[in-house]
């Protein structure tokens, strides 16, 4: 699992991202790198607006498939690649909003100021990436608890540990995340 530095604003980062985009335009199999560095951002944005897991996964998948297909037509205009992806996501969400069926699972605001939310998305994405860097025990518990939505009892059974031990790991994992998140946000 590669955890990448987000630092969207750094100029070196921009040049590097541009190279990645150009490489992927020539050879679509290079798209994997763009995916790796943007997955958490796209997912975080969608999860934040669509508070429903299957819906979030479905939309995330859709965004990246569309991005892959449209990549040859992508033109570099000095905006982060993530902004383009999030624009695709915002459009897809708006499309789905038209269907009443989805409406109650979506952000009631509906209208989304993409530009202002980029930084908030970045912070959330960063939190997701930090989970990957937790010590393995804590990471396992945090993932099972928050991503797989398992109960403490289920996790304890799965890991062969006591419920007390799992609660401790959850506690230490969250504390750890909190400290690292604060640190990375200065």
């Amino acid at each position, binding site marked *: 699992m590669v955890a990448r530095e987000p630092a969207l604003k750094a100029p070196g980062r921009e040049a590097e991202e541009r190279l990645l985009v150009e490489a992927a335009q020539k050879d679509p199999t290079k798209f994997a790198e763009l995916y790796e560095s943007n997955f958490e951002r796209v997912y975080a944005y969608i999860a934040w607006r669509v508070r429903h897991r299957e819906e*979030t996964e479905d939309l995330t998948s859709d965004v990246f498939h569309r991005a892959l297909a449209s990549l040859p037509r992508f033109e570099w205009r000095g905006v982060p690649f993530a902004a383009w992806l999030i624009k695709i996501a915002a459009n897809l969400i708006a499309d789905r909003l038209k269907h009443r069926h989805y409406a109650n699972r979506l952000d009631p605001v509906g209208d989304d100021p993409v530009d202002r939310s980029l930084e908030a998305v970045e912070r*959330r994405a960063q939190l997701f990436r930090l989970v990957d860097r937790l010590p393995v025990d804590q990471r396992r518990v945090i993932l099972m608890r928050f991503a797989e939505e398992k109960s403490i009892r289920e996790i304890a059974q799965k890991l062969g540990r006591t419920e007390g031990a799992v609660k401790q790991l959850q*506690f230490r994992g969250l504390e750890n995340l*909190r400290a690292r998140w604060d640190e990375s946000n200065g």
Partner: protein
Amino acid sequence: MAKRSLSQQLDELVDAVLAQPEVPEPALPPAEAKLAPLAHLAIRLRGLPRQDFKTRLKTDLERSAIMATKPVMTTKVRPVPEGFRTVTPYLCVKDAAGAIEFYRKAFEATETLRLPMPDGRIGHAEIQIGKSRIMLSDEFPEMGAVSPPSVGGSPVDIHFYVEDVDAWGTRAIAAGARILVPVADQDYGERYGRLEDPFGHRWGFSTPLNEDRAQQVRETFYVATPYLVVADGAKAIDFYKEAFAATELMRLADPDGRIAHAELTIGDSVIMLSGAAPEYGRLSPQSLGGTPVTIHLYVENVDALASQAVEAGAKILRPVQDQFYGDRSGRFEDPFGHVWIVSAHIEDVTPEEIRHRLDGFMSRQAPAERQQGPTKRVKPIPEGFHTVTPYLTARQAPQLLEFLKGAFGAEELLRTTGAAGGMHAEVRIGDSKLMIGGGGAWRGTPMPTALHLYVSDTDAVYRHALELGATSIHEPMDQNYGERSAGVKDLAGNTWYIATKFGPQYIPEGLRSVNVYLHPRGADGVIDFLKRAFAADEVARYAGPDGTIYHAQVRIGDSVIEMGEAHGPYQPMPTMFYLYVEDADAWYRRALQAGATSISEPADQPYGDRKAGVKDPFDNVWYVATPIKDVPMS
């Protein structure tokens, strides 16, 4: 009322957060002030992506990307002959004629070519199953072609996607195949079953359950796909990319990077691979000591690809040369023990012409070589064994055997009655064999043993062992030496240190699934004895400032024994060992000179070994044995 711990209070907050997935800022129960920031963090974590979703989407995208770039191949010379694809599995079988008959019944195979040798063995045959040719031949040990019984299994499954896996399973079982995995729905979206045919080859069949999965594999319906087991999946993928210009289609890795399943394309074909999983009987060529399935590649430029493979690290078994049957080909072994034939078709030759040329080819061979035929040499170490085999003795030996089968997936290979009226059994756990004796009329003294058992999931095996009646010595915990381990005692008093090494390989380099662990008083004395008696090599020694050995490893032949000085609850457990050696008499004398006492003089045994027994100064019992003739197992 007792004050609830912070971690308990925090968990109640997390429960409250998770119970309100659609509320932006959920209402939280009151809690200590210092927990508030953590509760807010928990709210942000509600949308945490599932790891497998991220991996799966990546795989999907990679497939789409590859589909978008696939070049159209045009060739004038057809180096891939009519009816073949890039990849063809080549099976070595003990009775090729019988196997062809079986495959006809079980898999609706049709025979397309058969080339008998002058001695009656089938030198080469080809059958068609589904959309694929499969090559096969009889066993030619003198040329490195060995069958599953000789290797002790197979590190390659032949996998087929079919429209009705149940029908395929039913027909194969009716024809005499043995079920390894009954046909059932799998959580990865396929209905899957795995069989072993009467000749020891293994076949997997699956039918996609959903349209997404069907879409992904539609191209490979009814195409024979080799499924390789390798010791290190990630390294193997890199190697196949470099050596055979393979493209990675997908990879499923666990959080430690171990490859659970991967798919690569080579030319127009797919191969699948996974890391070794001894607990599911998936052993690598290295742990089996060979492979009965060769992967045959038809390629455009055989010389270029062969040198590319050799540069990447493949070993040449037979250099590329023109063959009488119309191919230019060479044979190679990759760093993971799999064998590949790389070929280009250079000339269309009719089967009659091949037979004619084959006669000429045979008569040019030296007559002595030709008449030698398939001589069967008795090896110093029988198939599937290693130099050192632990011998567990117990009053309740049959119950112990059942426990090992249930708790550790032991495979029973042999069960018979020993000379002293007890049971004698042999089992395989992962890549290791163990002997078990006792019960019945046996009145000896049981020798419970301490063993280091490497598994892919310590926690699960530990729990399972306890369910089956083992008692806990310690719960699973991460150790500072890079393993997660747990301890249990089985009903016969054997101690099992269940362990999973961190990192891509859960078994450390040089060790096996099962390793004996001694806790002697005076470990350096034991090491010294083993060096003098059995030419042991000291592999590792971790000692304290006063020279106390905390942990040491010594190698005898191809096997490693671990030990640590007795301390606290870890008191000496003298162990019984069965050692396969070249010359039992010589090693017996050498052990006595090193200070052992005789238990039994060298003597021929009815089961085909010449065996002697000694006891070392630390009360361990060593049987040294040399196979003198092959005796059927029963």
